[in-house]
């Protein structure tokens, strides 16, 4: 180095450009790609990757039916992108374009990055690769199956068994004398976007449910999501009532909500409408609306959360300031102008209000317009605050399966799996925003969650990858129709086969604790390790030692728990050396278990 660089660059070593021996032959560039079962090579090609951080890089690209893989030796750089993460492929430049590397492909990804490849200008060299990427990145638009149907990875346990609705209701103490389980929707006749098993008020008969369904958008009637074990207050979810311009009323719907209220003798039922009130009013024009004064014993609270379009634009703005170049000069005010954290704040504070009402003993009903976006965010976050079971690794999987997947968050429409239509107005990062909220909670409560950040990153990666069936399709009926459970593997199969990777060494279960995160801008952070993770300077060089240390700590913790167990066993056994001195035995053996009970984890 001649003289120190003018701008001090701490991450001079780009972690994904590590030094490696150049001795391996260029021929073998793509030799070490390990393919998944069912994955097939489609095409490979000499190409130039235009890396936004280290410039044009010569190498080879491989397209399979699952991934785009790029490898170069100098510098040593690897890109491994599931085709499912690709949102849009475009041709860049034309045959006559001038300038270096002006001819090639421009790929927009759904996960906060773009990829550019330059190809030789002669002989339509990009035509075949463009068409093949286009075909395999958007299989549904080409009559091909999603990759999840092609791969047959085997795992020890099936993730499809993680969530069994009846068992989950039983865990919550249901059915009981106020709430019953109904199979009225077993053929998706009541509501085609709901699951088959529903919990409804004991008093409401099947025909009541049908009449209520007629008055709720898409038949999404209020059903129980969660019940508080002690005070029996519930979180019920639904869609907006079909009030319309004329202000229609439906006695059955009014009565039904009152039955929900009566179930635990709540004096007032709180209806949380996730939308800003103006939007709720505007929805009347299209037949929707909100609960008016005719709902006696109910109060309506608007939570001011914006719709899917606003969220999509907000995240787009965020991408603009972090990729490829991070806006440095006015970072904080630029971040503020995306409003992303403000939206996160509103979602979190809505969920806090829901959780607070329920833990104070009042039942709540949550809805937005259709009840599958903001509603899912609010109910699932409130449940995460209220019920420590959902903060375990397996419990969190149940929460996602239940509140998001089974209740018909439209993953297919919001993500656009295998669909070439990138400009679809249905796309929106609602689930990403939910995971962001969870991340904010894990930051505020570092010992309350059994899982770690890696789990959240893995979930978001496979939200797009199409490698697992978990996030495919919009609702259960569509999943049944496409035999997802039979023909694809669940993401949880992967996660639960490598659980130790996703565990937080500092987890301390506290079963009764309600977590109230602070939804103040002052305590929210941008999730830099997700949104800016493609930028080499954000990757922390120390990340790997930290992870290694955490693994050691996990091992140490397990050892510790084992020792403790042995200690307790030997204390209670008659052969204990203190057994013949009862006084001292009782005093010594009673202290340690008490002291350490909080460390016993149900692993």
């Amino acid at each position, binding site marked *: *180095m001649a*003289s*120190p*660089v003018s*701008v*001090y660059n*701490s*991450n*001079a070593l780009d972690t994904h450009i590590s030094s490696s021996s150049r001795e391996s032959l260029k021929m073998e560039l793509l030799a070490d790609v390990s393919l998944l079962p069912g994955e097939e090579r489609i095409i490979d090609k000499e190409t130039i990757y235009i890396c936004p951080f280290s410039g044009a890089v010569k190498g080879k690209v491989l397209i399979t039916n699952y991934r785009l893989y790029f490898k170069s030796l100098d510098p040593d750089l690897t890109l*491994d992108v*599931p085709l499912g993460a690709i949102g849009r492929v475009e041709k860049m430049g034309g045959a006559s374009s001038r300038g270096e590397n002006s001819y090639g492909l421009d790929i927009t990804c759904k996960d906060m990055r773009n990829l550019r490849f330059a190809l030789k200008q002669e002989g339509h060299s990009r035509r075949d690769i463009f068409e093949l990427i286009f075909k395999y990145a958007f299989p549904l638009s080409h009559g091909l199956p999603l990759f999840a149907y092609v791969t047959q990875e085997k795992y020890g346990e099936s993730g499809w068994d993680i969530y069994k609705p009846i068992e989950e209701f039983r865990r919550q103490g249901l059915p009981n004398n106020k709430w019953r389980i109904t199979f009225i929707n077993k053929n998706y006749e009541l509501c085609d976007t709901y699951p088959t098993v529903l919990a409804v008020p004991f008093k409401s008969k099947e025909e009541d449910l049908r009449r209520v369904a007629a008055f709720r958008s898409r038949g999404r009637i209020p059903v129980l999501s969660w019940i508080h074990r002690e005070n029996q207050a519930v979180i019920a979810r639904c869609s907006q009532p079909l009030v319309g311009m004329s202000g229609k009323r439906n006695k059955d719907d009014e009565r039904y909500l009152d039955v929900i209220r009566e179930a635990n003798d709540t004096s007032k039922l709180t209806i949380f409408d996730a939308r800003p009130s103006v939007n709720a009013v505007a929805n009347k024009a299209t037949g929707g609306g909100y609960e008016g004064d005719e709902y006696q014993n109910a109060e309506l609270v608007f939570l001011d959360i914006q719709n899917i379009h606003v969220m999509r634009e907000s995240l787009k703005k965020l991408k603009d300031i972090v990729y490829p170049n*991070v806006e*440095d000069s*006015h*970072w*904080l*005010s630029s*971040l*503020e102008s995306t409003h992303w*954290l403000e939206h996160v704040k509103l979602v979190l504070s809505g969920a806090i209000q829901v959780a607070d009402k329920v833990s104070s003993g009042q039942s709540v009903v949550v809805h937005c317009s259709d009840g599958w976006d903001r509603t899912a965010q609010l109910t699932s976050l409130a449940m995460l605050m209220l019920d420590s079971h959902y903060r375990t690794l397996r419990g969190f999987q149940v929460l996602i399966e239940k509140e998001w997947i089974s209740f018909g968050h439209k993953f297919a429409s919001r993500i656009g799996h295998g669909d070439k239509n990138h400009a679809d107005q249905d796309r929106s990062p609602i689930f990403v925003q939910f995971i962001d909220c969870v991340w904010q909670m894990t930051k*505020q409560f*570092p*010992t*309350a969650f059994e899982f770690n950040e890696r789990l959240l990153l*893995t979930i978001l*990666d496979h939200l797009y*990858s199409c490698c697992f069936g978990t996030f495919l399709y919009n609702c259960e009926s569509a999943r049944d129709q496409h035999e997802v459970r039979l023909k694809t593997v669940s993401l949880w199969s992967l996660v639960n086969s*490598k659980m*130790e*990777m996703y565990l937080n060494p*500092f987890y*301390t279960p506290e079963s009764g604790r309600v977590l109230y*995160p*602070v939804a*103040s*801008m*002052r*305590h929210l*952070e*941008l999730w*830099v390790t997700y949104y*800016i993770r493609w930028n080499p*300077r*954000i990757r*922390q*060089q*120390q990340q790997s*030692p*930290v992870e290694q*240390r955490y*693994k*050691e*700590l996990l*091992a*140490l*913790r397990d*050892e*510790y728990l084992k*020792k403790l167990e042995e200690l307790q066993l030997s204390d209670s056994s008659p052969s204990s050396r203190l057994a013949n001195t009862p006084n001292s035995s009782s005093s010594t053996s009673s202290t340690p278990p008490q002291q350490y009970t909080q*460390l016993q984890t149900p692993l």
Partner: protein
Amino acid sequence: MEFSEHIKTANVEDVVLRQPLHPPGRGTLCITGHHLLFSDREEGSCRQVLLLLRNIDAIEKSVENLLTCSGLFSNAGLSQRLSGSSGTITIKCKDLRVLQLDIPGMEECLNIARSIETLSCLDSMSELYPFFYRPSSASLRDQWGLSSLERHYSQMKELHDRWRLSTVNRDFSVCPSYPQAVIVPKSTDDDMLEKVAKFRQGGRFPVLCYYHKKNGMVIMRSSQPLTGANRKHCREDEQLLQAVIDGSDKGYIIDTRSSQQALQARMTGGGLESKSCYSSWKRLQRQMERGKALQESLIKLVEACGEESNNMDRWLSKLENSKWLSHVQTALSTAGLLAECVERDGHSVLVHGSEGTDSTLLISTLAQLIMDPSCRTLEGFLTLLEREWVQAGHPFQQRCAHSAHSHARLQQESPVFLLLLDCVWQLWRQFPLALGFSEALLLRLATEAYASDYGTFLGNNQQERCALGVKENTHCLFQALLRPRERDCYSNPLYEHTELAIWPSVYPQSLQLWRGFFLRWTPQTHHLEEAQEEIRNMVIEWGKLALSSCPASTRRSEDVQNM
């Protein structure tokens, strides 16, 4: 002076204290020469709040005088109404806590307020609490301080070839703000040093502050050269610096001012090292904010943090406008540059700004943390602070006289030391395993620098401390922090020694507001502190097990592929 002169009302009953994180309490308020004591004896619970008056940055008082609006009433009711009057004192502390006292009786309230105003900023240092603090657990005969330049030198055998310990400043006459002993090139004798001292502001001639064992390069620090408008130069100064890079092709001078500032300094007698006189030295100008600008930045930040409404509009803009984080960034990146010169580029560096007592110390300290594993332990870090801040003459008394709340006219106040602690916290956050101390230590230091039971941060330099007899008459904070119980609480159980340099990321996205300090008195930060504490205890507990039994088999799970 008798403190009692300033205490007209020493005790008030039935006072209501409101403080963050606690429910309000009713009890007795008591003012002493150095403390505000509140004891709350409600329902059997006895809570005491003992606040060092020195910790109080500003107070606001408001009295409700019912008399003024009741002039028409007869005198008979006067005494009754007097007792009905009351007042409220809002106390804003240097540790950013805000307390409120509701005091019955207007006169009492005004008396208390007056006492606080006077006693919280006593001018005479010998009246400060450290001279009265006599804990039963320690004796004044205990060792004071952790190390000395003499000891430092004698331990660093590798220095002895080319460097010597000079006591030219033994009576503080050459440089009033330097310690009695300093390390200089062997070839520079004391006569030369005296001449060099005359050429450097405040007599702060270049001295060694760090020796990089890996390659023998050093960090020197000084104040600006007094070249003045007619570009004086000093042969001895040039020789001294030449001796520093003896055998090497060049050295760097990191000047913490912009080129323009450095050139302008000539008009007031200061200046910079010219290329012609220091041909082997390459100057790098890196402007760092100092003095008033830094203090104002802190005030803006604390103001933004203190805003009540939870529905904070434009918080991020306010945070940005305070510029505090950009000062953190500049400090870390300049320190990074310094470390890069020494560690990566393999050259010695001289650091100075103008006085050489603020930003100079800031970046030399941070650079040492980045490069030198031995100052990343609890003990090593405290020793570093002692050497680079206390002994090197950072004027704590002037810089920390007031903090962000004070209404007093700013004089020499500047939160340079706080900025250092913030930068260290950023390092700590980015390298959770590399530093042997905890966030709690940084918080404790941030409090102690402004108001303390201990004598460590008293005065502006060693000379003042000697004159006051600080060593003989007060207790040492650094010693106290290393007692077994404190050591437990201030060490980092996740710490793992690494020989590697820890290069911080200085991009705005990598820097965070130090919530632990700036939002310290909010419930959320408090919860987080508790959770951190829980993690500490867990890890310590596991660690004990690992020591007591055969070493736990470190199971290595298969390497993880990131997709």
